[in-house]
């Protein structure tokens, strides 16, 4: 008998893709996607049930279908997606509690996979350069998605204690990026002028959306159940300044305090998210160590941080202000002229160039 998998948050882009990926697996009989809103695109062979995980009805779905694997992707990252911070918190925390309560009562559930975020480590000046799964946060997050995720992980750990027979996996992803996914980071990098924090240059890490799906698929379908916490990120880091330059848009350094204030007024227009934690991230940055998932599960992301970012630029058609190609042709033009001049006048031309 094949597996029956429940996916929460199935109406959003990554949820839809997850349902499709899982439903094409031979070892999987049924994939049930649930969300509060219907998906805008086809779920493939997966079924969709419109249900709110904050409601006990989720228990009935799990019971009726004899779900054995629950993939919890229903934690929302920005208030924009939920229609307000209060609703967002409600969906994230109460939704998770309700889902875990249903799982605890169920006889069929054997695995729980929770999509979490590296932002549970917080960020600040006292951080080590890389967080391993064991590193205690030096600056625990105090607001927003990161704090919700800390609470969600807390409840998940509680569940794992009470139901030690269920394999519980928490995947802490770096910022997910890619050609199609829309997140706070992708809308930030799509701004015409990119505000940055004056005097700081954050180290950023990205994981490609395909790698996010592959990691989740791997732990959901692995032959031996996997339990524990795993960091997932593309290899390497990219500096914020470097990312902005690779896009080819101008950066606007702003004093940290102002960025928060100005950002929030911008946030309400829906352009980009400048929550306190986002500003902290853009100030101090963060990187996670992925050796555990590499060593224990043999999972190596196909895309590095830099490659994932390049794929985002391509997919979102982010146009640079000055195209890279024309910069290259300017450079070639200059060297062509120089080689002619150099052949004629053998004088030092240093310094005249470069402005």
């Amino acid at each position: 008998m094949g597996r029956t998998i429940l996916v929460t948050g199935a109406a959003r882009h990554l949820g839809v893709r997850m349902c499709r990926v899982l439903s094409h697996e031979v070892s999987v009989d049924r994939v049930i996607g649930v969300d509060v809103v219907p998906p805008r695109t086809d779920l493939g062979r997966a079924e969709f049930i419109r249900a709110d995980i904050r409601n006990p009805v989720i228990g009935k779905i799990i019971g009726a279908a004899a779900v054995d694997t629950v993939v919890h992707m229903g934690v929302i990252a920005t208030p924009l997606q939920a229609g307000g911070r209060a609703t967002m918190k409600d969906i994230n925390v109460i939704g998770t509690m309700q889902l875990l309560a249903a799982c605890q009562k169920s006889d069929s559930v054997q695995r729980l996979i929770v999509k979490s975020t590296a932002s549970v480590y917080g960020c600040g000046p006292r951080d080590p350069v890389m967080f391993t799964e064991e590193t205690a946060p030096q600056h625990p997050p105090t607001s927003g998605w990161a704090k919700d995720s800390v609470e969600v992980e807390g409840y998940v750990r509680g569940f794992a204690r009470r139901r030690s027979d269920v394999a519980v996996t928490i995947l802490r992803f770096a910022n997910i990026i890619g050609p199609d996914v829309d997140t706070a980071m992708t809308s930030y990098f799509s701004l015409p002028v990119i505000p940055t924090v004056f005097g700081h240059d954050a180290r950023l890490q990205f994981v490609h959306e395909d790698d996010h799906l592959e990691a989740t698929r791997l732990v959901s379908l692995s032959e031996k159940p996997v339990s524990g916490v795993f960091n997932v990120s593309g290899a390497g880091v990219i500096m914020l300044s470097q990312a902005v330059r690779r896009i080819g848009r101008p950066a606007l350094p702003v004093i940290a305090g102002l960025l928060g204030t100005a950002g929030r007024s911008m946030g309400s227009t829906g352009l980009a998210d400048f929550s306190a934690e986002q500003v902290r991230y853009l100030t101090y940055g963060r990187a996670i160590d992925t050796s555990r998932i590499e060593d224990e599960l043999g999972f190596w992301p196909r895309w590095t941080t830099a490659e994932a970012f390049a794929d985002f630029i391509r997919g979102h058609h982010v146009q640079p202000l000055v195209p890279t190609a024309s910069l290259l042709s300017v450079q070639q033009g200059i060297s062509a002229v120089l080689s002619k001049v150099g052949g004629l006048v053998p004088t030092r031309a240093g310094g005249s160039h470069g402005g």
Partner: protein
Amino acid sequence: MVGDAQVFAFDADARRRGEEPGHVHSVSGVSASTPEPDAGNEVSALDRAADFIRRRLTGEYEVDEFGFDPQLLDTVLMAAMRPLYRSWFRVQVQGLDNVPDEGGALVVANHSGTIPVDAVMTQLALLDEHPAQRHLRMLGADLVFRLPVVSEIARKAGHTLACMPDAERLLSAGEVVGVWPEGFKGIGKPFTERYKLQRFGRGGFVAAAVRTGAPIIPTAIVGAEEIYPKIGNANALARLLGIPYFPLTPTFPWLGPLGLVPLPSRWIISFGEPIPTDHLPSGAADDPMLILEMTDRVRETIQQSLYRLLVQRPSVFR
């Protein structure tokens, strides 16, 4: 700011090539063996500068997980410090062969000078004078990573927070790590206490070296004490600004920005004989007695070298 710096970088690069025909180990991997630059060379240097600028503008360069940007460090940041190193402090380096050509090592040195110029000069000494042109990766206080601008430069120059995981990560990756265990106690001590080593933290650096089997290189720096003689401390102001001390020197802040010019003392940086740690049994890092003993030994070695060098130096400024 970036544009200016890059023009400067190019100048420095050209100067390096012109003045030092023997200096063939170019960090960027470009061989610079022609002593007399001719027109064709000039063009290729310009060509390289143009390429460098384009790469900087389009973000086509690599940083490591610490945010270390070797290209920026070698061509811009260090170039800005070179005149200070060569002409102002006229740094003499001793015992370079005590720093291995490859593999991890922990450079432990005395700290002084009100602002950490001594750390930057040590970094430059290893980059310019060591045959393997080693990058010194320093461990800094969290204040360094909280301050705007300073934190940005520190990360790009390859430095990181002084904490156990980072120290071990760098050492096991085979980097030369620099640590100044006196911290603010050393760098901010009054002028009257010059060349008296302060307390050496908790010996965390020794534990990191022992755990990774990296040799400890006790290093003495003479000259940095005299660059900004700290004769007073505006405590209230320091507290207001959230910094450990606000120095008062004979020239700062009385002469305004002019007071920031360091005194041209004569420097000697001496890398001492390495203290091996790889022969110790596993679990030695968790033996507090051994760690404290070793910490004392390192401290004593540096103090003795300081006395020796002070006698060697003809005078403070010559």
